[in-house]
């Protein structure tokens, strides 16, 4: 590999030499949340939709795995997947809001607006904050309904 040979030429500075800024964070979070939704989110949706189409038994099996197993003696596998399922669902909720708000920011940037340093920083922080707050609000609403 020609690129791996040591060279006397100066190397291009990479991520770690820069001071971490909100705009950098919101940029990589856009990619991370998008990829999470694209792989985990889409597969969870298809699993749910397929179980819904396959009938009450398949749907009950889906719920018992992802959310809550109603049987009196819950096996170790479902004890684990019930916890993992909830963590994944909260994570997907956050990824949805993060990607949505960050995507809206991109629509604004596409018009050529919002590149001034202070404005860019402000909206980057706003996007990250709004993503966390909307996730918390959603799950508070769900938990309030469940109680």
């Amino acid at each position, binding site marked *: 590999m020609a690129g791996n040979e040591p060279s006397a030429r100066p190397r291009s500075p990479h991520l770690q030499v820069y001071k971490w800024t909100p705009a950098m964070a919101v940029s990589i979070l856009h990619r991370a949340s998008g990829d999470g*939704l694209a792989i985990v989110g889409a597969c969870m949706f298809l699993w749910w939709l397929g179980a819904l189409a396959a009938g009450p038994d398949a749907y009950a099996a889906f719920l018992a795995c992802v959310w809550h197993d109603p049987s009196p003696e819950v096996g170790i596998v479902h004890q684990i997947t019930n916890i993992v399922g909830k963590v994944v669902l909260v994570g997907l909720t956050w990824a949805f809001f993060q990607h949505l708000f960050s995507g809206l920011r991109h629509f604004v940037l596409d018009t050529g607006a919002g590149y001034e340093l202070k404005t860019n920083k402000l909206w980057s922080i706003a996007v990250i904050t709004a993503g966390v707050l909307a996730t918390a609000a959603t799950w508070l609403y769900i938990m309030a309904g469940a109680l």
Partner: protein
Amino acid sequence: MGNGTHLGKVRGLGSSGHGSHHWLQQRLTALANILLVGFLFVSLVRLPLGDHAAVLRWASNPTVALALILMVVSVFWHLRLGLTVLIEDYVHGEATRLLSLVLLNFYAIGGAAYGIFAIVRIVLAPAAGLAPGGM
């Protein structure tokens, strides 16, 4: 899109030869996703998700089913564009990259087909005189 001058051609198409095609599709599917995934999100939060019959009634409503099919198309189109860029950025080596892109296309088209077929099953099972899941 450039009337023949070299500069005009570059401005219109760029080095890839297909200019703003990918960019525009990503934005258009993003716009559709805001509406359609927003609809799914609100529905999921409001539905009694533990009740199979109730969720099935919701999904078999023609308007809902149509929105779900449109959502599956828009989402899988959008995720294919996004994951393509991810692969182009991070997967090096021509063979691995080609294989990754092929697998991504299988995933995107296969996933969308699976989703649309599931919705069709939900909507048409009663018309075919079948219990849910009997198709």
